């Protein structure tokens, strides 16, 4: 009992994370509870995402995992030189995941996953100090992935499969720092598109040197979402030939969903205890610039210049009773945003995540999984230096502080 309490406390006070940029690492309740480790954990159908190669090692013929989290984020901004401050509307993101796997025979398992690894929802007060960079943004990408898992031996398996992505974007910001119509309403532009789709793939492997020790590898390819012919709406522009007319036009833009490499291990060091470690490398350097080409011929170029980033994840699982498993985790998440490129649409600096969770088996077949994470960001003085006005860079700077908290619930079914 004492041990249990200690573990729960550990779960509550340790740090956990999601990931930089617009990557949202909440792809499984059980993994989430363990710091979002899982590339070498054979536990549930969440492997469709974390490492399809491991599916074939699941004991049951049919495995289903479903879950959802509510992410409560809060970003505050202030500039003490100018006496201004703002706070984002406490938006709630809801990443979903649904995984299933079916063991066809001893060496082959098939699986299917639906998950949302990329997304962002940031809503600043309309016309706030940084409104020329963003008023609000909502990004979502749904991954649909069939996978195959093949056991080559009891020690080694491979897996992978194609990924179909469908994404949507809604992004509003003011035309610049000062343009208004005759009544002082700020001129602004909204770009909106949905059903933007493309294909990618993932490949993975699992190696079990001993019965209690596993190594995992997973690589998910980069996918570029190309919005073509989306809708751009110009609002509150003054009636003048010097500025765009109000109304709608089309826009083209590209948004990269970067590749991610994961390697990790899990070690069952006691009958009831499992330790896991994952290392993620996210190839954000593909995100050089957000360029929006409007149907009117004008272009908006927004330098991003992200860098590749790493995440270090640690997780612990304790099977407290036959019905209850407790989990805790911690992760260190490097931001892909470089200094001077800190745009308030993805105000992420380095962070630390603290996770915890519990599974409760209602029946031997069905379990409820609960997880939470709390993401802690250091206060940071940053700026976005590449906004241009009349050919001159006009930095937007200040102090930012963010936090994110996400409770989640899921079900695991096995047959």
């Amino acid at each position, binding site marked *: 009992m004492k041990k249990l309490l200690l573990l729960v406390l550990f779960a509550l006070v340790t740090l956990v994370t999601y990931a930089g940029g617009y990557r949202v690492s909440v792809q499984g309740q059980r993994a989430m509870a363990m710091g979002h480790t899982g590339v070498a954990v054979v536990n549930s159908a969440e492997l469709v995402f974390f490492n399809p190669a491991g599916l074939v090692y699941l004991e049951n013929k049919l495995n289903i995992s479903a879950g959802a989290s509510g992410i409560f984020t809060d970003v505050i901004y202030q500039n003490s030189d100018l006496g201004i401050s703002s706070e984002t509307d406490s938006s709630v993101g809801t990443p979903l995941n649904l995984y299933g796997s079916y063991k066809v025979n001893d060496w082959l398992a098939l699986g299917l996953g639906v998950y949302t690894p990329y997304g962002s929802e940031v809503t600043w007060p309309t016309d706030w100090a940084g409104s020329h960079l963003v008023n609000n943004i909502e990004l979502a990408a749904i991954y649909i992935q069939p996978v195959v898992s093949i056991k080559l031996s009891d020690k080694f398996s491979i897996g992978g499969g194609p990924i179909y992505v469908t994404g949507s974007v809604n992004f509003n910001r003011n035309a610049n720092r000062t343009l208004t119509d005759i009544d002082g309403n700020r001129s602004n532009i909204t770009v909106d598109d949905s059903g933007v789709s493309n294909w990618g793939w993932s490949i993975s492997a699992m190696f079990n040197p001993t019965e209690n020790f596993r190594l995992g590898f997973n690589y998910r390819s980069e996918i570029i979402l190309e919005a073509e012919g989306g809708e751009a709406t110009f609002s509150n522009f003054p009636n*003048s030939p010097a500025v765009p007319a109000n109304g709608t036009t089309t826009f083209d833009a590209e948004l990269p969903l970067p590749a991610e490499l994961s390697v990790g291990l899990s070690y069952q060091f006691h009958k009831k205890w499992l330790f896991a470690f994952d290392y993620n490398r996210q190839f954000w350097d593909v995100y050089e610039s957000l360029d929006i080409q409007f149907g009117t011929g004008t272009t908006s170029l927004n330098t991003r210049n992200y860098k590749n980033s790493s995440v270090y994840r640690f997780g612990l699982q304790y099977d407290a*009773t036959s019905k209850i498993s407790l989990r805790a985790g911690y992760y260190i998440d490097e931001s892909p945003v470089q200094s001077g490129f800190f745009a308030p649409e993805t105000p992420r600096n380095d962070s630390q995540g603290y996770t915890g969770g519990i599974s409760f088996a209602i029946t031997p077949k069905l379990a409820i999984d609960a997880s939470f994470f709390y993401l802690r960001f250091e206060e940071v003085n940053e700026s976005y230096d590449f906004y241009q006005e009349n050919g001159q860079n006009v930095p937007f700077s200040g102090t930012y502080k963010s936090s994110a908290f996400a*409770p989640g619930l899921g079900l695991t079914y096995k047959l």
Partner: protein
Amino acid sequence: MKNNIKYLAILALGLVACESEFDNPIDEAGVYSSGEADFSNFVALGNSLTAGFADNALYITGQENSYPNILSKQFALVGGGEFTQPLMADNVGGFAGQTATFPPRLVLAFDGEGNPGPAIYTGAAPSTNITANLGASFNNMGVPGARVYHLGFPGYGALNPYFGRFASEPNATVIGDAVAQSPTFFSLWIGNNDILGYATSGGVGVDHNVTGNTDPSTYSPQGLDITNAGLFESTYKALIGALVSTDAKGVVLNLPNVTTLPFFTTVPFAPLSPLDPSFGPQIPTLNATYAGLNAALAFAGVPERAISFSASAASPVVIKDESLEDVSADLAIALAGTFGPLAPIVAAQYGQARQATANDLLVLTSSGIIGQVNQERFDELVGLGLTPELAGQFSVNGVTYPLQDQYVLTPAEQSSVENARQAFNTTIATVANDNGLAFYNVANDLTQAASGGIPFDGGLITSDFVTGGGFSLDGVHPTPRAHALVTNGIINAIEIKYGATLPSVNPGDYGTVTLSNDVGAN
């Protein structure tokens, strides 16, 4: 099961949402301070500059971007109270049904060839009722058009609807209504109109530092005269005396050099280009005609007034300089041979004429009339017996018909304005010092804007018309961006005088001129 529930309950504790908080939030005490000042009730006094008048009109967004209103938002971080303004009814400006005397605002419109220029906004009709009274308690007491002696003048509301809109009673004074609000802090920026009206009208008024007249009731009702410096001093002292009588602290601003305003610096003294198809081809004819006049001017003993137009460079306009000796009589004699009985008429037209020099300032409103036939003069000449053809030839503004007094501020007139300004500024600085008030030398900043520019994060703020970002389309009143600069200057003065610590504002966050092609037919 009991235990299971316990675990879940403990887990639930973690669900308490976590709010972000800064180590040093700016809304907490200790970051900024009001020093020795108390901003809880801030009242701003002044003229159009204080009211937020811009683009030749008073309208809501101009009022919202007035320096007192911007300042009040910074004061709010250190105990400043609500700041109320007598807002107009719309963003059109002017008064309903009064467009001749109170026209709508100017906007920057593009003509058919894509050339930008100021034009009167016609997208909606003015809707502000000129007689409606909004009540007397407003923190912004700026009254467009007010001169120093107007603030203490009982019944000023009947003369100026901008005060009538919020005067407490028919006989109220601006200063009385301000003091009645018991301000804890005040600002006063007054005196600009005491020289500006004379300057913008090209010096047609009277300089009362020359006449010695200290009775403002006898001054030009259109505000064309220069206020006597002695009157300015006694009035200004009385205003400050009233404001500090309740131990209020405050800030005062001095008067910038009006001749650096784009209203005086935009139209060049030599705008007549030989490349202009409507002017260039006529240069030989004009010079041949003026040769006769130049001979007559030599006969009259003023050969330096000879007029000619260059075929290779832009030439100065011909102006009437009323400070010159009138040589019409001599001209009439010399021209009799050429013009016969019409000679006195022609002579009168050029009796005080000369070509402009770089020292003459042409007002902004002259840009539309130079090179155009002056219909009034044409009709006059025809009435005097000239043929329409000849009348037309002698009626071209700035070319054959000398630009009249109201379009040119000559060096002598500029001196009148500048001498008065210096005297007024001496008074302002002295009174500020004697009363322990913060003093902002805004004149210095305007000089910098006019001579190189004031840097901000998006470039330079200069006094150039339209493109400089500092002046609205009337060429006199500041843009929101310039109001932001003034705000920062005031904040600096308050910090120095009262030991306050206040955040400044970023001029780049404030706009300049407003675009609109809702300007009717153009």
